[in-house]
């Protein structure tokens, strides 16, 4: 069965929105002209992914399914070409993977939350904003958010299911609210990908003292990103949002957080300053 480009694209988008992983393989080169442009898709998780479409060749389909299953199992697998060797030459399969959409849960709807929701949305997160003040938790204040919810900070995630793709940012107006939500976030199972909490060193330290007093294990503290964000000297809410967003990218993609100028030293390495030699 041929899988149309539009159907393949729709499968991928719908899978990501419903919390599933999807991989689509398209033959883009090689000696078998008849199969170029044909697609196969796998939807679901490692063990029980369903196949859609066919590349029009049984052996090629089996190989593609194996390659694509391997991609689902490897968290670092990226889009790219995979080659199936035949006596006539290599058949090139372009395989692309889409993981479930990442969630950003901003707890607190104040000044920092607004630019955070905006940048989070630009970065491709599905953004949810929570506050206990209905006047602040409005779509008008957060036009980029997918959801804005009025909650009780004693149980903020009751209507907002947390999962391994959740990124939680605690930016409420008060320490005690952040604390209540932090405890809930730490206890969430499965563990969220990121838990960040705004605050000065002093405030973070006080929070940790209280967590330990309340019986939270020391190891749990290492899971918390606090004070939140990369050190870029941020002062305004917008700058703080940029620093936090940079940390979200860092957690997702890896990296050093250092300035590339300093890492690459292009001027120094390739254009040594004669005066200093």
């Amino acid at each position: 069965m041929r899988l149309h480009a539009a159907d393949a694209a729709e499968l991928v988008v719908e899978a990501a929105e419903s919390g599933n992983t999807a991989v689509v393989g398209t033959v883009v080169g090689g000696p078998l002209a008849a199969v170029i442009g044909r697609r196969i898709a796998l939807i679901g998780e490692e063990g029980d992914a369903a196949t859609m479409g066919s590349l029009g060749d049984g052996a090629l389909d089996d190989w593609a399914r194996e390659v694509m299953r391997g991609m689902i199992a490897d968290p670092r697998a990226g889009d790219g070409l995979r080659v199936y060797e035949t006596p006539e030459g290599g058949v090139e399969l372009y395989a692309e993977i889409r993981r479930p959409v990442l969630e950003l849960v901003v707890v607190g709807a104040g000044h920092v939350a607004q630019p955070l929701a905006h940048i989070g949305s630009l970065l491709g997160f599905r953004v949810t904003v929570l506050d206990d003040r209905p006047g602040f938790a409005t779509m008008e204040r957060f036009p980029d958010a997918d959801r804005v919810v009025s909650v009780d900070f004693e149980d903020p995630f009751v209507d907002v299911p947390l999962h391994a793709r959740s990124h939680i940012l605690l930016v409420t107006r008060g320490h005690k609210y952040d604390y209540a939500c932090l405890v809930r976030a730490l206890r969430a199972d499965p563990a969220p990908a990121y838990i960040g909490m705004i605050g000065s060193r002093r405030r973070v330290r006080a929070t940790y003292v209280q967590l330990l007093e309340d019986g939270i294990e020391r190891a749990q503290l290492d899971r918390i990103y606090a004070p939140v964000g990369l050190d870029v000297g941020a002062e305004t809410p917008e700058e703080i949002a940029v620093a936090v967003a940079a940390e979200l990218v860092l957690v997702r993609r890896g990296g050093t957080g250092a300035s590339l100028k300093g890492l690459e030293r292009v001027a120094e390495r390739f254009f040594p300053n004669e005066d200093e030699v």
Partner: protein
Amino acid sequence: MTHDDDRSLTDALLAARAAGRLCALATVVGTKGSTPRKTGARMLVDPNRGLVGTVGGGCGEAEVIEAAMDVMGTGVPRRVLVDLTDDLVSWSPAVCGGIMDVFVEAVHAEGATR
């Protein structure tokens, strides 16, 4: 591509199919060096709507659009190697110093790609 990019391209593909329009889909399947878009970037060339998405703009994209027109005529998919390595000192926005490997295919309304 972000999820929103995926979504708008999907909507454009579905709309073109529903209207029975022949389009061409360009996909960056590999890159080498520094390129304006990375692997996975897509652009739909829809004769009625123009371009949806981008493979980087500039001269490189013009080459891809030309291939798209060709592929819509012949129905035979093509690979286009967009070389952005010449002329490193030019002011053209297309100068990035890399190569993009782009797969260009006709997308027919009835489902066959050729």
